[in-house]
């Protein structure tokens, strides 16, 4: 399902390294591309993602900023309008709250509001998610906000290869693209092509195929779903695992096809359940032709409707774990 066609050489990289490689390749290929954000230079990024890029491209193009998220994103909007290809890093996705005006009221709408006379080709990269003990203001999963905004594209890479390929596609895109990375994934490794192959936005990846239940998962939940699927297989339950990868535009057809085949859908996200993006996927499924093929109610397994707590045992309880996925999926299959 990936658009990577001729990846000549594939190495093992971490997700963070894959992001860095994409940034470096994009900057090499196009001098309009530059990075800005808090501590992206010498510090190498709060999560070490930009790393040594400042040494390769200099402080002008790998630009440390003061702590002013609204200003930084606004500066990216202006630079994009004036012909550049800025890539903003926001240290934690929680701080996009500071910049929502420039993201939503400006970047997302300018192309439309100006009747197509201008474009805002910018990328905003930012890590979401819990699991590091950083508590309620540093652990949110806010993809549903962005996915609700016409004019934005929203990407959630779940593997190192996608972290690279989707980011390269996002940088190419003439629209503002929000790339939601995940803190816990940064250190995960996987095969990554060394070339600058793009992974097209808007294609759901089928990570695993099984006939009993379709598990749709995003972000860090993709690897948990795959792990759960192995356990389920050992129990005789065959699960398909689908990773939408881009929430906007959403390739819902691949999801509908899978659910049509399995008749059961388990939708897994880290974000709190109420109003989360999996509600949208649930709605798409029941609006679609898959409706007539459903053998069970559509089930969501999501984060609790709570802010992320600090204590490790509480933090763990607040979001789906592998065993929760196993339990819900087998319940779905065994009961219906």
């Amino acid at each position, binding site marked *: 399902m990936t658009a990577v066609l001729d990846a000549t050489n594939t190495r093992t990289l971490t997700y963070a390294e894959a992001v860095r490689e994409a940034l470096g390749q994009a900057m090499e290929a196009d001098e309009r591309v530059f990075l800005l954000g808090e501590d992206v230079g010498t510090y190498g990024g709060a999560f070490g993602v930009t790393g040594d890029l400042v040494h390769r491209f200099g402080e002008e193009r790998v630009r440390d900023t003061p702590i002013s998220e609204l200003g930084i994103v*606004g*500066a990216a909007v*202006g630079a994009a309008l*004036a012909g550049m290809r800025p890539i903003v890093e926001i240290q934690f996705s929680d701080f996009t709250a500071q910049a929502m005006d420039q993201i939503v009221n400006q970047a997302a709408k300018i192309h439309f509001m*100006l009747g197509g006379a*201008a474009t805002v080709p910018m990328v905003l990269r930012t890590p979401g998610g819990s699991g590091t003990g950083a508590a309620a203001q540093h652990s949110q999963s806010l993809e549903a906000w962005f996915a609700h905004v016409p004019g934005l594209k929203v990407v959630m890479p779940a593997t190192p290869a996608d972290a690279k390929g989707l980011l390269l596609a996002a940088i190419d895109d*003439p629209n503002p693209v929000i790339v939601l990375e995940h803190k816990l994934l940064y250190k995960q490794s996987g095969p990554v092509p060394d070339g600058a192959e793009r992974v097209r936005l808007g294609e759901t990846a089928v990570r695993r195929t099984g006939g009993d239940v379709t598990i749709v998962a995003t972000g860090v939940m993709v690897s948990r779903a795959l792990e759960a699927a192995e356990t389920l297989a050992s129990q005789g339950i065959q699960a398909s695992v689908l990773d939408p990868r881009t929430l906007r535009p959403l390739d819902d057809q691949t999801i509908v096809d899978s659910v049509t085949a399995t008749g059961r859908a388990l939708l897994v996200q880290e974000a709190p359940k109420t109003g989360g993006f999996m509600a949208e996927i649930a709605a798409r499924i029941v609006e679609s032709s898959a409706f007539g093929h459903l053998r069970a109610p559509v089930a969501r397994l999501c984060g609790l409707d709570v802010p992320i707590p600090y204590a490790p045992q509480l933090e763990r309880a607040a979001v789906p774990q592998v065993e929760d996925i196993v339990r819900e999926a087998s319940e779905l299959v065994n009961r219906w």
Partner: protein
Amino acid sequence: MDLTKDAAAARETLRTMWTIRRFEEAVDDLFARGLMHGTMHLSIGQEAVPAGACLALREGDYITSTHRGHGHCIARGAELDAMMAELLAKETGYCRGRGGSMHIADVATGNLGANGIVAGGVPIAAGAGLAVKLRGGEQVVVSFFGDGAVNEGAWHEGVNLAAIWDLPVVFVCENNHYGMSMSVGRAFKVQRLAERAAAYGIPGVTVDGNDPQAVHDAVSDAVHRARAGQGPTLVEAVTYRWKGHSKSDKNLYRTREEIESWREQDPIARFERAVAGTLSEVDIAACRDEARDRVREAIRTASAAPDARADSLTDAVYAGSDR
């Protein structure tokens, strides 16, 4: 440049101010007659600021504008019929009827957009300045905003970025004494908003915003500094809005006398008196008539144009991939 002594400049300044005035009077009238939709923010009484400021710019320079942006758009050289068509919700409007007054812009003249968000254009201007700097260009960005915008976080952050990176941006504050009903006296504890420049380590200057010459001089100096790589300047132009904030304004927060006293300082009448030695009565009348005629013609052309089409709305949200 002495706008009152140089006949060509005098004519251009006068024509620009009259065009803004006549355009907005026409808009006011169309709105009152129910022929125009939405809401309108008119800059009548403030024409000297865009006229004086934009004369300091070259082709290729950028501006960011505001909800009260007709004047900036016109002073930067936009076509009146495409502007009028936009306000009349026509397919031929600058934004194909999708933006209206609050988003009007002629991108071809470097106008990066009016903005419905107070101070929304300020960080955008810094970003355009950053683009220029990264490319090693000579362009300048003028960011227009009102007094009310100066208290927004976006303003603070945008100005600071421009300051620390020495970006070629000129921040032009149109201090018309009020942000909606909130007077500058109540919203600020400083006397002059230009005092805030010091907080960012950049020069700040306050000028008579009803005098195009004063505005022009200050903005020209600032543009010169910006082009020379010396960074941004804050220019505060003190002026007054004659009309209500928008259509919902009952003017409860200011007195008739105050409004009257400022009408007596009409920037256009003042400038006509100032250029009396340079332009003849006939010349002056010609400027006035030309403005009137251009606006009339714009209304005619725009009115005849097809209405904006609702059929391709969703296609218009995203730009097509360019690679």
